[in-house]
């Protein structure tokens, strides 16, 4: 194993995860105002549809696919034991990845050809576009050339990722993988590293809480049941505002 390999497969992942954790905590506590993706739909509301929608649904599916293979590899392998099911999985993943790529290209074209968007475009946007396109193209290349990814991900990459999280990196199997897979792994960790430093933080605040909160929200500066009651004890404790 040469230096480059150990950097990509061991050094980079730990650096990226550390940056991700510390950066996210820092941004959430100190830069909470910016913890979102600066929406530009208000300035350009038509072309965004052909970019944002295929891109996001694509990445959502592909991302969940990777996550499933990471969390429950044996189930994925069982599923893949029948060729028809394997083909369904592989083909739909490929289609979603294509949708993601088309969406990305539309987003890039939209951003750099619409003059109203230039005031809300920054250098980090370019970095993200390059990384995401690189990552998507590498993923499609791997899926096409080294079949079937869903199976060997579960057998090779999942143990490697577990070993990273267990702080006992075991790269014996991964070093043998082709350079395109290593590129895909490296870009993935770079993307994770820049999440807290870019608009990508928005994927951490998917507002699922909305599903179970009541529609209306009323907030009180004081506890309405206590404020006028002479029975409320005078305490040195900070009262809870319920």
């Amino acid at each position, binding site marked *: 194993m040469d230096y480059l390999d150990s950097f990509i497969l061991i050094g980079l992942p730990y650096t990226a995860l550390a940056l991700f954790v510390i950066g996210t905590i820092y941004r959430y506590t100190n830069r909470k105002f910016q913890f979102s993706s600066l929406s530009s739909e208000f300035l350009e509301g038509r072309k965004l549809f052909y970019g944002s929608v295929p891109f996001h649904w694509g990445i959502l599916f592909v991302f969940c696919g990777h996550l499933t293979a990471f969390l429950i590899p044996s189930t994925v392998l069982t599923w893949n034991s029948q060729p028809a099911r394997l083909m369904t999985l592989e083909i739909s993943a490929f289609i979603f990845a294509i949708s993601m790529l088309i969406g990305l290209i539309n987003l890039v074209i939209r951003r750099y050809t619409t*003059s109203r968007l230039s005031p809300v475009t920054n250098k980090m946007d370019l970095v993200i576009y390059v990384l995401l396109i690189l990552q998507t193209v590498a993923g499609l290349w791997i899926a096409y050339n080294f079949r079937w990814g869903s199976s060997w991900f579960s057998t090779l990459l999942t143990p490697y990722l577990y070993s990273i999280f267990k702080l006992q990196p075991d790269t014996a199997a991964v070093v043998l993988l082709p350079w395109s897979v290593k590129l895909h792994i490296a870009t993935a960790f770079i993307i994770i590293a820049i999440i807290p430093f870019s608009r990508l933080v928005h994927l951490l605040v998917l*507002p699922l809480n909305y599903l179970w909160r009541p529609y209306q929200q009323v907030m009180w500066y004081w506890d309405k049941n206590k404020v006028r009651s002479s029975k409320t004890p005078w305490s040195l404790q900070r009262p809870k505002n319920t």
Partner: protein
Amino acid sequence: MDVRSQIAMVFHLDKCIGCHTCSIACKNIWTDRKGAEYMWWNNVETKPGTGYPTKWEDQDIYKGGWEKKNGSIHLKGAGKRRGLVNIFYNPNLPVIDDYYEPFTYKYLDLIESPEGDDQPTARPVSLITGKPIDIKMGPNWDDDLGGTPDYARHDPNMKNISPEEQEVMFQLEKMAFFYLPRICNHCLNPACVASCPSGAIYKRGEDGVVLINQEVCRAWRMCVTACPYKKSYYNWYTGKSEKCILCYPRIEAGLAPACMHSCVGRIRYLGVLLYDSSKIEEAASSDEKDLIKNQLNIILDPFDEKVIEAAKKNGVADSTIHAAQFSPVYKFVKQWGLALPLHPEFRTLPMLFYVPPLLPVMATVKKVDHKEQLEKVSPVAKKWNDNWLYDTSTKELWGTLDQIRFPLKYIANLLSAGDEDVIKDKWKKLMAVRIHRRRVTVGDVSHEKAEKVLKEAGLTAETADAIYALTSLPKFEERFVIPAAHREQAIEMMDFTGDTKGETGFGIKSKVKRGL
């Protein structure tokens, strides 16, 4: 009964002169910032007209507000399912062109241009891109009908007014319009709050002001879609939605909001309403014809002992209850039944009420023979030789109500979900007050007639006098009855104030509590 207090408003449309002072007061204080240039938390529209943003009232386009389906209400264009499915791209978001592209002028060019044959001009430049633009729209482009009936014709409230009726409306000599100043209604059933996936928007329990927490807003923009009045705006520069805050720092100190304080026509009233918050959903889900009635029903009588007791139990301060008893809003809305919510059919239960305008209705335009009069005028005077007379006399009883220049339906579409009888009832009252006062001050109306008019409108002479006084002669303190917020108590609920004593006083600049 779960009593809460709400700072509510009444705008008397007969008195608005369309001067836009309110809009400027608001702009100068709150929205004169990058990304907010296009926002007018307070705007004044000419009605009939398309408004701002263009055709905001047309919910087939903007999908704002609530709609009733199978007995319960749902957000039309947002909500848990629709909002989350459309989170990557909001198909019903108004874009900058629906408002207007904010602009300024390159004034320096007027001074710095090189000498030449032509006058230098100050070109308009976009406040978004900084590049020169052709101005296509402004915040009140349809002001005073904008020089063409086109704006009025495209008013969404014209939808069920027949072409013949419209023709009559738009005859040049008979044309009428009025002004509609609008701010956020600080609704009881706010669609903006319900639509926010992040839960950034909330209604304050103490005074009902609806606010957006800028730290929690994550630019999903669902509130912009959901508010049927289009009073939540997206700031493209900060990536946050913003809305009217009812000048809460002023309200808390017992001062009137800037738009109201500066109002030249003195059309604005602000005061406390006590209401039963347990009935909000029920009222918002009523059948369309009962909406107004049920909305007014949840507003409670501040003199009722039971209401006062329940209010106290809910922490409402004595000063607030006292203010509710002197509230001009309570008088206009409940006691006299003169004011109506704008577009009640959007079901947000708005807390800003409008007294429908009588002027465009009351006056008729007649063809008369002026010859005799003209001969009396001095020969050097400028003479108009048209024969129109703008007649505001009150000769016939309800005569003018039946031959109004404005279809009743139009006002009903605006203020009563299409119910013409409701509007007629308000107009009768307003007219009765005028006829009664004319008897008192001018004396050319007979006692019997004035009595008859008052009786038919359901008013007594005393009530009519009170309405007249609060409409025409109110002092500042009568228009704005605002209890100061009890923030000192609020703070005591959250902090032990003894701890902070001395922290910023002599000698110590930081918190004294030691953890290490």
